[in-house]
C-alpha cells in the first residue's frame, strides 16, 4: 500500500527505516515537519528540538562518533549557523552514518534569502544528495546513511520547498537495525587538532574521489534515453519541471548525487545527445562544473538564476513559448501576512511606533511582522539572534557620531535561546546603550508552534526543564529585569520608561502566551464599537489588527476574527470600543 506523504514526512520515514538512533534539530521552514513527524517513532529512536542548529548538529555528530546512525535537519540559513561543526566533521569523518538535511527555499516563501546550499557540500567536501519527490525523499535518506558510512563523511540531503512540502505517494520499507558496537576511543580521528587535521585532509580528498567514481554507476543517478536529439542533465525538483517542459523524446540524466558530480557518466550522456541542457533552480552549480570539465551545454544563458522554476517558466525560458493568460482587468491589492488578532506582540510594537526617536533592531519570528505597516516599528531584521547584537552596533555608531537615539534590541523567546543570549552578554560586557527586549510568547510561533527551552515541554510532548529568561538575564548581570504584559498598553509604556530611567542595567521581558497555543485555556472575548461614540478618527487602525477596519466612516470590528484583546479599545480616544464577554 502506498501512502500520500510530504517530502518532509517521507524523510522522517526514511530516517526511521534507516535505523537512526539519535535525531536533533531546530525548526525552520521548510524543514520543520520532518522533526514534527519523528516522535511517532520514539520507541525506536531518540528525537529532540535543540536550542539551535549548531547545537543540533553537534548532538547528532556526537551520536555518530558513538557509532549511532544520527540525523539533523534545518532550513538553508540554519546551515549557516551549523556550519562550524559540519566543516570539521567533514575532516574527522563519521562512525555511525550522519545525515544533515538542508531545506532550501527558492522564491523565499518564508526566508530572508534564497542561498543555494549545494555549494556548502562542495565547500565542506561532503556528499550532496537531492531527491525529486516523496518516494525519493524516503529512499535517498536511507541511501544517504549508507554513503555516509561507506565514504566516511557527513552527507547533505538537500531539498527545496517544493520537495519538502509537496505530497506524493510513498511505499514503505522495514526498519533496519544498526546498533552501535561497544564504544572505542579514537582520538586520532575525532580530535581535530592541527596535527590530526593535517593527516585527515588527504583522506577527505581520497574519499571524495572514490565517491565521484561511485556516482558513475550508483542507483541514485539514472539515465532515461530518448531519441538522442535533446538531452537534459537535472536534479531535484527541476527534474519534475523539465519532464513536463521538454518535448517527448528528450533524454534525461537525472542526478540524485549532485556532489561530487559523476563526470564520466555526464560525458557519456553528453556524447549521446545532439544538444545538452543543464536545468537547475537557482545557481549554475552543476553547469559550472560540467562546463569546466569541457562539456558543451546550455544552462543559465536561458534559465533564470533567481526564484523557483515551474514547467511553464521553463517552456518560456528555454523554448520561448509564452504562456497564454487572461487579464481580467481588475487588480488585486496585496495581502501581506500580519500579526494575528490578539497577538501579544502587537502591544509592544504599537508602543515602539509612537516614538520617532526609538530605533528598534528586530529579529526573525512572527514578530518580524511588527515591522510591517501600519505598525512599521522595526528598523532592522538580519538573522536569528541578531536583534540584540545589531542593536549594540547601532548604539555604538550613534554614540561615536553624537546622534541621540534610544535603541532597543528585540528577540523572541525561542530566538533568545537560539542565539540571542550571546548578544545580551555583548550588551553588558561592552556596555552598549541598548534596552534588550524579549518578546516571550512561550512558543516558537512562525514555524507553526514548536516547543523550546522556555516553553516547559520538549519535542515528544513531555514536561521538560523550563529555562526562565529572566533568570538568565539576571544571572548575566541585568539587575533590573522588568516583566510586563504587553497587551496592557499603559503597563507596556511604563516598562519602557522605567527601563530607560533605571540606574541599573535594565532588560524587558514582554510575557503573554501566543493565543494559538492549544494546551492553554485563553481568555477570549469580543470587542464591539459604539458607533454613536466613534468619531471615525481611525486611531484604532494604527494597531494593525486584521479584525479592525473602517465601514461607513466608523470603526468596525470583524466578529469572526476578533478575540477581544482590547488593544484597539485602549487606543480609542473616545472610549467607543468595549469588550463583550463571550
Amino acid at each position, binding site marked *: 500500500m*502506498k501512502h*500520500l506523504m*510530504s517530502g518532509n514526512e517521507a524523510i522522517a520515514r526514511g530516517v526511521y527505516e534507516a535505523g537512526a538512533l539519535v535525531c536533533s534539530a531546530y525548526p525552520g*521552514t*521548510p524543514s*520543520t*515537519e520532518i522533526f514534527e513527524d519523528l516522535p511517532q517513532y520514539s520507541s525506536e529512536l531518540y528525537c529532540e528540538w535543540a536550542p539551535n542548529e549548531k547545537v543540533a548538529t553537534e548532538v547528532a555528530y556526537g551520536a555518530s562518533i558513538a557509532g549511532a546512525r544520527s540525523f539533523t535537519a534545518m532550513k538553508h540559513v540554519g546551515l549557516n549557523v551549523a556550519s562550524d561543526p559540519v566543516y570539521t566533521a567533514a575532516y574527522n569523518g563519521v562512525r555511525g552514518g550522519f545525515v544533515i538535511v538542508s531545506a532550501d527555499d527558492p522564491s523565499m*516563501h*518564508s526566508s530572508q534569502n534564497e542561498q543555494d546550499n549545494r555549494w556548502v557540500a562542495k565547500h565542506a567536501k561532503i556528499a550532496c544528495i537531492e531527491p525529486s*519527490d516523496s518516494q525519493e525523499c524516503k529512499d535517498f535518506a536511507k541511501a544517504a546513511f549508507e554513503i555516509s558510512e561507506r565514504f566516511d563523511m557527513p552527507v547533505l540531503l538537500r531539498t527545496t*520547498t*517544493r520537495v519538502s*512540502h*509537496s*505530497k*506524493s*505517494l510513498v511505499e514503505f520499507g522495514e526498519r533496519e537495525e544498526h546498533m552501535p558496537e561497544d564504544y572505542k576511543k579514537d582520538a586520532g580521528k575525532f580530535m581535530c587538532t592541527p596535527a590530526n587535521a593535517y593527516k585527515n585532509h588527504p583522506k577527505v580528498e581520497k574519499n571524495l574521489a572514490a565517491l565521484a567514481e561511485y556516482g558513475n554507476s550508483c542507483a541514485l543517478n539514472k539515465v532515461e534515453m530518448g531519441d538522442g536529439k535533446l538531452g537534459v542533465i537535472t536534479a531535484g525538483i527541476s527534474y*519534475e*519541471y523539465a*519532464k*513536463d517542459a521538454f518535448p517527448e523524446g528528450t533524454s534525461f540524466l537525472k542526478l540524485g548525487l549532485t556532489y561530487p558530480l559523476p563526470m564520466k557518466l555526464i560525458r557519456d550522456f553528453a556524447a549521446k545527445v545532439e544538444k545538452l541542457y543543464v536545468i537547475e533552480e537557482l545557481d549554475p552549480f552543476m553547469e559550472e562544473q560540467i562546463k569546466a570539465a569541457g562539456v558543451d551545454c546550455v544552462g543559465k544563458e536561458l534559465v533564470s538564476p533567481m526564484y*523557483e522554476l*515551474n*514547467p*511553464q*517558466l521553463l517552456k518560456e525560458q528555454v523554448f520561448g513559448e509564452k*504562456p*497564454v*493568460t*487572461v*487579464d*481580467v*482587468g*481588475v*487588480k*488585486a*491589492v*496585496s*495581502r*501581506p*501576512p*500580519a500579526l*494575528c488578532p490578539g497577538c501579544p506582540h502587537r502591544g509592544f510594537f504599537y508602543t515602539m511606533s509612537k516614538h520617532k526617536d526609538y530605533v528598534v533592531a528586530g529579529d526573525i519570528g*512572527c514578530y518580524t*511582522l511588527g515591522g510591517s*505597516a*501600519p505598525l512599521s516599528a522595526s528598523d532592522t531584521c538580519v538573522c536569528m539572534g541578531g536583534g540584540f547584537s545589531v542593536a549594540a552596533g547601532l548604539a555604538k555608531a550613534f554614540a561615536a557620531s553624537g546622534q541621540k537615539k534610544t535603541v532597543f534590541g528585540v528577540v523572541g523567546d525561542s530566538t533568545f535561546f537560539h542565539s540571542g543570549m550571546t548578544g545580551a552578554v555583548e550588551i553588558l560586557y561592552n556596555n552598549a546603550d541598548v534596552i534588550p527586549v524579549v518578546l516571550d510568547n512561550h512558543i516558537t510561533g*512562525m*514555524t*507553526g508552534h514548536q516547543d523550546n527551552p522556555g516553553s516547559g515541554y520538549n519535542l515528544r510532548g513531555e514536561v521538560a526543564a523550563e529555562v526562565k529568561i529572566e533568570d538568565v538575564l539576571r544571572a548575566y548581570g541585568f539587575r533590573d529585569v522588568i516583566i510586563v504584559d504587553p497587551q496592557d498598553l499603559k503597563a507596556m509604556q511604563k516598562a519602557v520608561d522605567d527601563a530607560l530611567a533605571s540606574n541599573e542595567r535594565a532588560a524587558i521581558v514582554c510575557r503573554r502566551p501566543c493565543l494559538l497555543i492549544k494546551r492553554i485555556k485563553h481568555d477570549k472575548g469580543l470587542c464591539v464599537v459604539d458607533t454613536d461614540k466613534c468619531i471615525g478618527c*481611525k486611531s484604532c*487602525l494604527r494597531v*494593525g*489588527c*486584521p*479584525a*479592525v*477596519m*473602517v465601514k461607513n466612516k466608523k470603526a468596525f470590528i470583524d466578529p*469572526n476574527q476578533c478575540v477581544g484583546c482590547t488593544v484597539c479599545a485602549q487606543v480609542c480616544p473616545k472610549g467607543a470600543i468595549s469588550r463583550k464577554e463571550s
Partner: protein
Amino acid sequence: MESKSVLLVGVGGQGAILTAKILVNGLISAGYDVKMSEVHGMSQRGGSVSTQVHFGKKVNSPVIGLGAADILVAFEKMEAVRYSPYLKPDGIAVINDYAMESSTTAAGLAVYPEGCVEAMQEHFTCHVLNAQAIAASLGNVKCMNVVLFGSMVKALGMTDIDWEAVIAETVPPKFRELNLKAYRAGYDAV
C-alpha cells in the same frame, strides 16, 4: 487521460489544505497518480495562500505556472482575481462570493477592488456561490471549505468517485455530519 491541475487559493486559515486533502484522498482511491503542493510558514499569518493538486495517469511537477490550471477554486473573491493569470483561458473557476479585507485594505492603505466576480465571469466559465452564507446557515462557518468542495466536484463533473465516503474518512468524526451536509449544499448550489 491528460493530467489535470486544480489550484485552490484563499487566505491563510480558510481551510484550503483540508479541501485539497479530501480531493487528493478521493483521487488516490480512484487510482490516479497525484501530487499536491502546499505553502507553509510566514504566508499562513493572514496572507494569500495557494494549494495545488496535479493528477493523472502519471504526473511529474507538483506545481504549475501561468496559464496552466484547469480549475481555479477561490475561497475569497479578490484571490480569484489575483490567481486568474494561472487559469487556462478555457479553464473553469469556482468562486466564493465573499470578501475578506487584507491588512492593507483594513488599515485604509489600499482599497479593496470592486467587481472581482463580474470580471472573472466576463472572461471565464465561472460557478459562483456564497459558501460563507451557506456554511453559516448550516450552523458553522468553518465548513465553508467543504461547501466549496461540493461545488467544485459538480463543476469538474467528477461524480464517479464516492466523495461522501471520502469526506467521512477524511474529517474528524464529530464534524462528519456537518461536512456531509456542507458537501451536498455546495454541490446543489451551482
